[in-house]
């Protein structure tokens, strides 16, 4: 049976500030969805909320996998149900070797009922699998011995996210700008990598600003987010249109959300001035 990740009327606040204002979306295994939208529209907020980041508070609505509500589950439980996020900014874990980290992760994902301290998957089997996957993704197996994301270049970090995706084989993968900040070679590697991995067993939600990732992984659905709402849904041609023309037409078609976006921007920039923080790009 095809599983589905169902988001209904999701409202999310960060530190009391409402960011998402009623997002509904359904991703089924085997489907590819693109999520686009200007900076600050709430794409990453949706991604973090899906995986259970404690800072993102659901004030209304629900997230379900196959009818099982996720709202009350922590990030670990959600991961064990088959949800995966490739982080926009992967985290450095000093002193933790990629291989050790992945061995724990895989063991838990494959035996969701495992308690800490119970056996890990056998070392030889794991090494073999990891090596094969790294070869397939064109990664130097030396990476397995490095500390997770420590001293990695931007491209290496993103590739490490793809490697984790490949090893963990989630039912639902969210990729948050996995193609940003990479040179075109690296974008190609990541795009090809994802194409190899996705298939009938995986539902994918791709957050992107670029074309390449979607050329290799053509979406059946494209969603446009503006000021915390999904304002339009179309097919792959909508993604192309947004690439070529930007969001001005979308804003014209949705004046209420465009006004909210403008209000948020001015509100936030005055706040930024008060705290003398550099404006985000």
């Amino acid at each position, binding site marked *: 049976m095809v599983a589905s990740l169902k988001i209904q009327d999701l409202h999310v606040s960060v530190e009391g500030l409402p960011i998402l204002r009623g997002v509904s979306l359904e991703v089924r295994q085997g489907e590819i969805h693109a999520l686009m939208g200007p900076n600050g529209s709430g794409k990453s907020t949706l991604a973090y909320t899906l995986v259970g980041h404690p800072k993102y508070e659901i004030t209304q609505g629900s997230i379900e996998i196959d009818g099982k509500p996720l709202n009350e589950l922590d*990030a670990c439980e959600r*991961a064990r149900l088959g949800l995966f996020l490739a982080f926009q900014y992967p985290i450095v*874990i000093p*002193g*933790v070797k990629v291989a*050790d980290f992945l061995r*724990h*992760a895989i063991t*838990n994902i494959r035996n969701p009922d495992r308690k*800490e301290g119970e056996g890990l998957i056998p070392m030889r089997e794991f090494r073999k699998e990891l090596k094969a996957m790294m070869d397939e993704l064109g990664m130097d197996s030396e990476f397995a011995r490095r500390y997770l994301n420590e001293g990695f270049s931007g491209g290496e970090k993103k590739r490490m996210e793809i490697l984790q995706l490949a090893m963990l084989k989630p039912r639902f993968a969210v990729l948050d700008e996995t193609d940003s900040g990479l040179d075109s070679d690296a974008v190609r590697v990541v795009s090809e990598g994802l194409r190899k991995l996705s298939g009938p067993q995986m539902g994918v939600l791709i957050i992107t600003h670029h074309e390449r990732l979607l050329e290799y992984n053509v979406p059946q659905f494209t969603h446009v987010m503006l000021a915390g709402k999904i304002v339009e849904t179309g097919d792959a041609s909508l993604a192309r249109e947004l690439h070529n023309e930007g969001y001005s037409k979308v804003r014209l078609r949705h004046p209420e959300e465009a006004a909210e976006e403008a209000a948020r921007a001015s509100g936030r920039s005055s706040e930024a001035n008060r705290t003398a923080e550099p404006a985000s790009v």
Partner: protein
Amino acid sequence: MSTAIASSSAAGFSQEVFEHFLSSRHEPAWVSELRREAFAKYTEFLEQPLDPEEWKRIDLRALKPSQFHLVTTQAATEASAASGLEANADPAIGTLLADRAEFAGRVIHVDGQSAISELSEELAARGVVFGSLTQLIQTHGDLLKPYLMKRAVKHDQDRMSAWHAAFWTGGTVLYVPRNVRVEAPLYGLVALAKDKAADFSHTLVILEDGAEATLLEETTSLHATHAGLHVGGVELLLGQEARLRYVQLQNWNHRTWHLATQAGHVEKDGFLQWTVGGLGSRLAHTHQDVSLDGRGAVAQVNGVTFAINRQVISYYTQQTHRAPDTRSDLLYKDVLRDESRVIWRGMIDVEKGAPRTDGYQRNDSLLLSTTARADAIPGLEIETDDVRCTHGATVGEVDQDQILYCMCRGLSRHEAMHMIVEGFFQQVYDRIPVPAVQETLSQAVERKLGLGRDT
């Protein structure tokens, strides 16, 4: 003798106790003389306040030396050793290192008395001496006399060193002759068994020019709830081009006081790698000096500390450069939880005759709870030009983004915490290429993370 099984000296460290202790030891005159001088100093020091620079952050008021007693009867200890070591039912205590490697020799002390002492015949034939200080003072007095509390730990240094020098109960001697290289590690265990027993063990390592050795020592309590007192001394003396790896893993129970005076001296082109592990004790204070006495001498000092509950673990470290082109590199890493406290006061001293010194010290603390507290106070005192000395200290909480990232990959919060703590210590493990030590520390960390965890 066998009727004396329960006998131990009267409690405390009075003149009377000292005389009784001395008469039970049957030691050569020069040793007794040293003890008498030390006891006189100890009495003097008791009248004076402790050096505030070293002690002002530590509260010793709850320490009542008069509650503790030295065990003086060999028979008593052997009996308790035999029963204690075998009947050690609590898996959370016991030794961490003992079964992890092939050791070329072992020395085991219980309540300050030697219980087991052995060395491979091959090493003995090459002139290596490894065994109990109490025994070797009788058979190898001439060898030890120029070193024992003469060069590194001195009886008139301060109250703790004098106390130790007057009452040392036994300990471990390692002597490696010129150019002899001992490959396999040697092992020492210092255990406390009886309730309110005092251990004043002394470790004396002498490496002649060009000698090489690895000594792994650990301390443990055979019972989780017995109160204990350790007033210890460690002396590491390295000749020219000698290389020593020394590890001391302090793993007493949480009712033991640990007061240690430790010093290492390195001659020309010698290399000392010194690792301290601070896991156990109610309150631990270690005064650790490394002294680079000859041109080109190098010392690397590593520390791994994990404090929980109301433990207080304190270090006073000194890196003294006395000769040109010397290098010292100290890295301490502490993890704290609950209401525990870790204090590190570090000093690099560069004397006039030590140009081109390269000195480094760093302390990183990771707080697992908001009620724990870490103080790191680095310091430099430089009396010559043309040196490079750097120091740094960080104190931080566990990064919640790291926890989330791990959890998003299916690790539980606790497992994530464990990974991050292990990773935090990894930088120190990477400097210690002795697998037994890495494994031991990492297993100890695992155990400690499990203690009193909330689920």
